[in-house]
């Protein structure tokens, strides 16, 4: 027996929570929005969600196998990436488009930089940006919710083309809140996304800081710039991908600051950029690009927001 005792440095016990538990929680949190997507967009959602997840997982497994690394699809992060990408694509997008997106997200953005935790941009958002730049037509062909896939414009699209009055007349705040409008597969329903967000908060996967500061900044800015029109502010909060971006994308561990102060700076930055792009930019929607831009700024933000350690005297 004497020779069989393990010697190691303390601590000798660890918690039960693993990376896959966290990813599983994210997937659970996305279930309401995913079911909502299936309800609103029917087969249009299916042809986007299924290939995206399958391609993401397969890409990760095959790439890791080929490059001689440990296959880590068991941590479920590829499933999360695939699902998040799918929820950010238009319903009825061709299946090959989603597959290309998943391959780009997993191989180029994630694995080439060292795998989980080492990517400097959110893989799903980076893939979406590439798809939007490469296939703008397929990426902006919107349909109305419901059984018949009637093509339509999104509320933010109407806003950028026809102005405030037309946009606010096109979709009621209630429809925006419930998700009964045109838009990406999983971003339309504010209420379902907030349910998922509440679950993530409850499970301690995310804190309130990034979503609250992000959406708060957009709320304050649109209230100020919209002439103190309260319903216009709500329109901006509920329309487009703000909620899914603030709750699920901006809170991505790898690409957001770990310090509390840094998270505030980062989230406010996301909010400012989103508002500026939406109101003055060339694209109707600014959430994806705002988050990607702030992702890149994360190391810098962290450097300037290093917290004081216990007992450190103020300089």
């Amino acid at each position, binding site marked *: 027996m*004497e020779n069989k005792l393990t*010697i190691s440095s*303390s*601590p000798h016990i660890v*918690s039960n929570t693993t*990376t896959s538990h966290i990813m599983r929680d994210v997937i659970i949190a996305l279930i309401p929005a995913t079911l909502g997507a299936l309800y609103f967009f029917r087969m249009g959602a299916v042809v986007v969600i299924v290939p995206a997840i399958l391609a993401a997982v397969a890409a990760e497994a095959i790439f890791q196998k080929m490059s001689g690394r440990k296959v880590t699809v068991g941590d479920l992060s590829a499933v999360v990436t695939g699902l998040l990408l799918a929820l950010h694509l238009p319903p009825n997008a061709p299946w090959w488009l989603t597959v290309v997106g998943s391959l780009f997200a997993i191989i180029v953005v994630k694995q080439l930089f060292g795998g989980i*935790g080492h990517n400097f941009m959110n893989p799903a958002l980076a893939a979406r940006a590439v798809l939007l730049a490469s296939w703008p037509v397929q990426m902006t062909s919107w349909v109305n919710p419901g059984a018949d896939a009637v093509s339509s414009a999104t509320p933010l699209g109407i806003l950028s083309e026809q102005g405030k009055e037309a946009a606010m007349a096109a979709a009621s705040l209630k429809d925006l809140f419930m998700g009964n409008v045109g838009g990406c597969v999983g971003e339309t329903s504010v209420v379902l996304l907030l349910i998922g967000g509440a679950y993530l908060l409850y499970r301690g996967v995310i804190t309130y800081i990034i979503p609250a500061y992000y959406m708060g900044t957009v709320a304050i800015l649109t209230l100020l710039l919209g002439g103190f029109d309260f319903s216009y502010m709500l329109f901006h909060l509920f329309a487009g991908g703000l909620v899914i971006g603030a709750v699920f994308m901006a809170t991505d561990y790898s690409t957001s600051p770990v310090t509390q102060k840094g998270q505030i700076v980062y989230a406010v930055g996301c909010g400012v950029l989103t508002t500026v792009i939406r109101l003055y930019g060339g694209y109707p929607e600014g959430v994806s690009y705002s988050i990607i831009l702030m992702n890149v700024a994360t190391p810098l933000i962290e450097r300037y927001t290093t917290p004081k*350690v*216990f007992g450190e005297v103020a300089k």
Partner: protein
Amino acid sequence: MQLFTFKGGIHPPHRKKQTENMPATKAKPPGVVYIPLLQHIGAPCVPVVSKGEYVKVGQKIGEAQGFVSIPVHSSVSGTVQALKEMPLQGGTKVLCVVIENDFKDELHESVVPKGDLTGLSREELVGIIKEAGIAGMGGAAFPTHVKLSPPEEKNVDVVVLNGAECEPYLTADHRLMLETPEDVIEGARAIMKALGISKAYIGIEDNKKDVLKGMTGEIMPDEDINIVLLKTKYPQGAEKQLIYACTGRMVPSGGLPMDVGVVVNNVATAAQIARTIKTGMPSIERITTVTGGAVNSPQNLIVRIGTLYSELIEECGGFKEEPAKVISGGPMMGLAQSSVQIPVTKGTSGILCLTKAEAKIPESENCIRCGRCFTVCPVNLQPLYISAHSLKYDYKKAEEYKAMDCIECGSCSFICPSKRPLLQSIRVAKREIIASRRKQNR
């Protein structure tokens, strides 16, 4: 009731149920004791007995060398068999006095009551504590008389007694406070007197509320000693965190408790001081929790210093399955042992025998930057970055990220979902930083 605490920390499973309701019982006196001549931080003592000599209980067998050193006494009566080197908890070899027990328990003449606390002067008290070989019994084993002799320029005005016992599995301090609260309180008074101060706090986690009844009431009519109920959280018993929770004072980075006027002692140390004054018996025994899933019937044992771990495990019914790890102390900060043939010292608060399942540490994966290690760090460090720099041999960067402020509580490694060896790599960085500082001073 308001609970006091600090920022950060974790909630590891308590696993105290097995032993917290088991009264501390006297362990069978061992046939042979192996008493190390170095059981404290500081200089080792020199033996003052030789082979074949007859020694009695409480007799001094090792003399202190220098100020940061304390003498060692025999815990049995009998004949000195040998003086030989043995590996101790830390793995280093230390000279031990091997004494064959004659089971007569003859008391040495020097073991006489030291009189009433009111009649003793400060100097006398510090002298008694030093002569009795009392070192911190929480695990660090720092000679107590040194703590009680602060330099002139430090204005110590508060003593904090550590009764947190925040390590999972361990219940030695819990039983001590429950069974002999009067010794703890009397010890607190002795420490206050030795320091010439009139304020004490005893910090106790709220999972040990049952000790409150004994610790307050009749035995404590004065208000100089305050019981502070602490939130049950690890590492609540870490010195600086405990001081902050009890007094609101923040020990500066790189500083000592004395810098904010505080001296911290373990409750078991205080109780030992009280007993020594009452009976004259030096530090020759302590309560140790023998526990863990691999032990048949875990217990709190009153153990003579120098008893081998193997004998205590035997007394607890032996192993019910082969242990994967035997730890001196708790699972968060204790030292893993390569053998159970090592003697109990003044700092052995627990002997923890973990089964394969309990000791399992999963393989580490990529850091996902979840920031949990940073959230739980009681010192507000960013373990993920210190560790990352350490693993890249960039110890300068690790130092910039304040690696030296790490208190090595292990909360970061515990909480990490990717099971990264965060503390372990920070420890490497600390060692390298200390080494390079030494080199520069040369």
